[in-house]
């Protein structure tokens, strides 16, 4: 499979990354790039952003066991969370806590994340596979401007590999027909490297995104939380 890799300059005003559409009724992030560059090394090794993993646990999408392992592997998290919440997390008895205790911890973490300006990056709250339905008053263009197009799938150009400008999380995205619905799939580090380095796309996801562009159909295909 041939993959066209196109990169756009990150600086400049927001219009540099503005979406345009070959069909006026379809909003996408494609075809807006004026300049294309190779992938800068710092993008590949961009600073770890902890928010998606924290939100995954807060939203009940990752298990306590997985979160505990991740927690112990990232001692630098204290600087981002603050001492109180961090100590509460590392002191928690993940292995023996009952469901209510884990839920209470999730709730505390969620409250902390919401109270500390984490709303600036909306994508951190999304589920790994999600359907984002914009409000009627919400601009699709403004939504798409939150992301930078990295690679466009050559067989399904409406499916795009993008990076959040706020937290650097990489996503596969596809706009629905109205531009008010977006199917999104969070990419793991290995998945995003596979696309960039090996031009290897996650075929199952691509297939599902290609065939299920409307809200309900995609919604029905979403996996239940882990």
């Amino acid at each position, binding site marked *: 499979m041939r993959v066209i890799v196109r990169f756009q300059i990150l600086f400049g005003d927001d219009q540099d990354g503005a979406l345009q559409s070959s069909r006026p009724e379809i909003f996408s992030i494609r075809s807006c790039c004026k300049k294309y560059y190779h992938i800068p090394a710092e993008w590949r090794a961009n600073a770890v952003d902890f928010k998606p993993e924290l939100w995954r646990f807060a939203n009940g999408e990752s298990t306590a066991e997985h979160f505990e392992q991740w927690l112990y592997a990232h001692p630098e998290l204290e600087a981002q969370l603050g001492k109180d919440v961090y100590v509460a997390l*590392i002191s928690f008895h993940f292995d023996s806590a009952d469901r209510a205790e884990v839920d209470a911890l999730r709730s505390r973490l969620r409250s902390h994340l919401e109270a500390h300006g984490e709303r600036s990056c909306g994508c951190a709250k999304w589920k790994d596979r999600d359907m984002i339905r914009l409000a009627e008053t919400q601009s699709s263009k403004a939504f798409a401007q939150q992301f930078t197009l990295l690679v466009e799938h050559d067989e399904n150009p409406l499916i795009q590999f993008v990076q959040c400008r706020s937290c650097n999380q990489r996503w596969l995205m596809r706009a629905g027909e109205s531009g008010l619905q977006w199917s999104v799939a969070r990419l793991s580090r290995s998945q995003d490297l596979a696309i960039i380095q090996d031009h290897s796309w996650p075929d199952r996801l691509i297939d599902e995104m290609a065939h299920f562009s409307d809200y309900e159909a995609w919604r029905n295909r979403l996996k239940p939380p882990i």
Partner: protein
Amino acid sequence: MVMANILVVDDDKHFAELVAAGLEAQGHSVVVGFDGQMAIRLAKSVRPDLIVIDVNMPLTTGTGALEFIRKIPATRQIPVIFLTGAPTPSFYPTVEAHSRVAYLKKPFDLESLNSMVRQFLEQYGPAEP
């Protein structure tokens, strides 16, 4: 002699069990773990009076585990003895940065370990219940 609950952690299971047997022979009660994350987990749940831990281990190293153990209120006072083969340059500053920490270079004889354990327990005593 003070008898204590001791947590022994080493990714070499045979070695960990050997150390545990040596400590049990002295009358201590011993729990064994095999990596740094187990060390943190067991330190929280067992609340040992002393931790004897290897430095180089998978998932989280012994020194990495110490950083967590010192931050958790329930475990921060637990004395720690590191067992180390070839300490890296960063090992010594870590040891010096914390109180209630000592190390024993591998290979060592069990009497050296028992002696250090005895000294630690006499100095710091079993943790308050």
